[in-house]
């Protein structure tokens, strides 16, 4: 039995210490965003944030997570109250089948948390571990730029926001 902190809540998890986080998130905690794409650390679909850093949950065993904070896409916002990155992806319609998108968004979120104004080059380098088969890359890049912009205006005062584009 171990305690796993996910999206700000403590959970008691009965899993072997070598269980990859991905299965705990999906099967024990019934969270959908992190996806099984390969289980080999090659595609990025399983990406979540642990202590502020993007990690591949399919190759992150439970034993590494004692005392760490796990954040999944569900923890960033909801349909009625989306976070800037979620709003940006909806506004840019940055998805086709959408299977890779949650992983992309978590990697982007981690990037924006440490570098709120990344260049195009930096975003591309950051997303290098992620595969998208549908070819939605252009929109994903636009959405990350948009999220950066939204985060910027979100930080403004209400008066500033009224005049922001």
């Amino acid at each position: 039995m171990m305690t796993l902190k996910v999206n700000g809540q403590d959970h008691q998890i009965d899993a072997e210490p070598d269980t990859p986080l991905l299965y705990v998130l999906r099967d024990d905690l019934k969270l959908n965003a992190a996806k099984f794409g390969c289980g080999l650390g090659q595609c990025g679909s399983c990406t979540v944030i642990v202590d502020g850093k993007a990690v591949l949950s399919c190759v992150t065993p439970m034993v590494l997570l004692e005392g760490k904070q796990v954040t999944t896409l569900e923890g960033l916002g909801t349909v009625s109250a989306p976070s800037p990155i979620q709003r940006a992806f909806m506004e840019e319609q940055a998805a086709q089948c959408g299977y890779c998108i949650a992983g992309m968004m978590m990697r982007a979120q981690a990037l924006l948390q440490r570098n709120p104004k990344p260049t195009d080059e930096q975003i591309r380098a950051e997303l290098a571990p992620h595969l998208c088969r549908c070819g939605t890359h252009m929109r994903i890049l636009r959405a990350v730029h948009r999220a950066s912009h939204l985060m910027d205006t979100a930080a403004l005062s209400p008066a500033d926001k009224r005049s922001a584009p």
Partner: protein
Amino acid sequence: MVALLVAGAGAALAVAWRPAIAAIDPPKPQSFDPALIKRGRELAAIGNCNDCHTVRGLKNFAGGLPVPTPFGTVYSSNITPDAETGIGGWSEQAFRRAMRFGVDREGRHLYPTFPYDHFTNVSDEDDRALYAYLMTRDPVRASARENQLSFPLDQRFVVAGWKLLFLRQGTYKPDPTKSAEWNHGAYLVEGLAHCGACHTPRNALGAERASASFAGGDVDNWQAFAINAQSPSPVPWDADALYAYLRNGFHPDHGTARGPMAEVVSNLSTVPSADVRAIATYMADVFGAPSPDRKREGEAVLAQAKSGAAATANADFQGAAIYAAACATCHESGRPLPYGGIKLSLSSTISAPDPRNLANIVLTGVRPVEGERSPIMPGFAESMSDAQVAALLTYLRARFTSQPPWTDIERVVAEARRSQTAFLQTSAGVRNAPAEPSQRDKP
């Protein structure tokens, strides 16, 4: 040390000053014989020139790569045929002088970060081919970055003293008691391929220790293993294994060449097989035939790895759990290299005296080469703390080798974390994947 240099420089005033060679108009690419350019390309690949002279984000051979040395950072120069910022104004004589004596066109001494202590062995004919190749590349306008060296090392004449002490000038002299292939290999290894520049330890003045040839060195915060009788490889190397490793970028009994070696094998996969064969023959002799004990140990390790018998599990619970979930999926998959992780009992990296390379790999993984079949290993820098990486490394050392445990691992991991971030930001990256024969460039 400074006193020694000043004394040396004073005594060598004659060599301290070199005349400038007049600048020429950049020669027309059409003026060079295509066959010569082709051989030049192969020699440049053997010399691994593009690796040092290209930095991420800039064009080929335009320089700008920061090379950390114990004395400060030296930036590689622009060797494209640009007239102003590159070597476009260099005559062939000037080029040859740089290779042979480490002096640029204007007569200034070059820092031995440019390994002319090896390139001095290159023949005139090969220098001609290299010149032809470099002068027919795309010219790129990119000024050299200022080196970051402290006084008096930033004064180039000081290098004259260094040369007096350490530069053995002249071309390679063949050994008549050895085969032609061995000699060709020696010529390449001691010359263009400059293996010792990484694989030989250096003295306090930054020169290779002649008495410790190939006994191991450091480069870019990686450890270049000993490639002589002190090799840490669990399975001893022979000429065939060396050839396959250098040519294809991997060997099933030894592993996949990554880190700074990745670019080397990427380049060697594009040169005629005879050149690689020669290098392998020479180096096999440098490794020397293994002693009967060593041979027996190697065979035992191989047999155990192939049979899949589990080595005795260490009591370290965290390390074992991390290994099972994060490593075993690939490293015990039974898939052949280079796409399956190597059986760790065969890994030189885990058997090496220093955990640094293992820390580097575990932290940053192995990135795929764009669009080519190539190994992918996830990096664990984000998901593991220094303490967790150290626990894993300790476990791997205990489980897969019979070597004494490493010490001070956490400090090595912390340093590796810092240095690899820098490495990844500046290295232009590997162009070529470890290859099956069908993937290899035509020489």
